[in-house]
């Protein structure tokens, strides 16, 4: 009896797609970090001071 769990083996094309998605997510997250940092510098202590 084969007790190895069923696993999906990715093809080269699927690996390339996954890599492209991972890089895109990393770039977006990096851009968000930079943007939040810059906005924090711009807004300073009044960061969350937004009158309704």
């Amino acid at each position, binding site marked *: 009896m084969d007790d190895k769990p*069923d696993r999906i083996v990715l093809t080269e094309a*699927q690996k*390339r*797609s996954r890599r492209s*998605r991972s890089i895109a997510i990393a770039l977006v997250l990096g851009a968000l970090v930079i943007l939040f940092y810059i*906005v924090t510098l711009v807004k300073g202590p009044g960061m969350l001071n937004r009158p309704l």
Partner: protein
Amino acid sequence: MSLASENAALASPLRAEIAYAEPSMAGASDYVALLKPRVMSLVVFTALAGLVVAPGHFHPVLAFFSLVCIAVGAGAAGALNMWYDADIDAVMSRTADRPIPRGRIAPGEAAGFGMTLAGFSIAIMALLVSWLAAALLAFTIFFYVVVYTLWLKRRTPQNIVIGGAAGAFPPMIGWAAATGGITLEPCLLFLIIFFWTPPHFWALSLLRVDDYARARVPMLPVVAGLKETRRQILLYSAVLVPVGVAPWLLGYAGAVYGATALVAGLAMVAFAWRVRVAQSGARAERAAKRLFAFSILYLFILFAVLLIDSGLGGLLGGLFGRAAA
């Protein structure tokens, strides 16, 4: 039933689903396509006009952040539209190549992607820019997805007339982000895009009547016929002339904008008139194509001149003045 056997019973269909699920082939470009980047570029441009034309000083970094939120919000609405309309997209030649009909992205993935982006763009706009701008962005996404896509698109030939409001909100969002309020001027920018949308979309639908009929989308040419569509294109184009000139008439823009809006508006009417008189054949198709192409140019010219005429000069002056100081 023991817990173990219950788990086994629950797990087996899930395991089957996992076993048959194909790993995603979607690349980053497929997710970008879900955002409708061409529509997004027009949204960003008109929102920029609202931002720049608004009175007072708005920090360029916050302006950029606002535009990113508006762009992402527009993209989210596009992704949710593609999720719901995947069945229509699959049978229309113009949209059959989109990621969901092609099988590159599962509908549920697109829905999750759209909802996530919508939530983030609205939350970030609210937290970092302005509550009103965030509320308007949320309403715009709601209007495009729920009012236009889910409700009107498959039910009435007035779908793109009423639904067109969603595409007209970005200048108001830009204005609200810059000022924290809304006045008559951004409402005029809203009206320009609102009255521009029907001739723009109906010119396209004249070229895709068979597609829309096959997809059972009740666009005006499918429901009311080509002749009535051409008549309404002309009517909306005629209404667009005074609406386009209104910012100058009411003193919000300079004479350069007024003259440009008048000439461009009359040109739009001339193109619409050609569509009206060219009833059939290659001449009619050419006239519709030209109107569609010119309508994009019309909106670009109007907002570009508005930017230069009443906003960009001041913004650049402010930036250079500040740098010099």
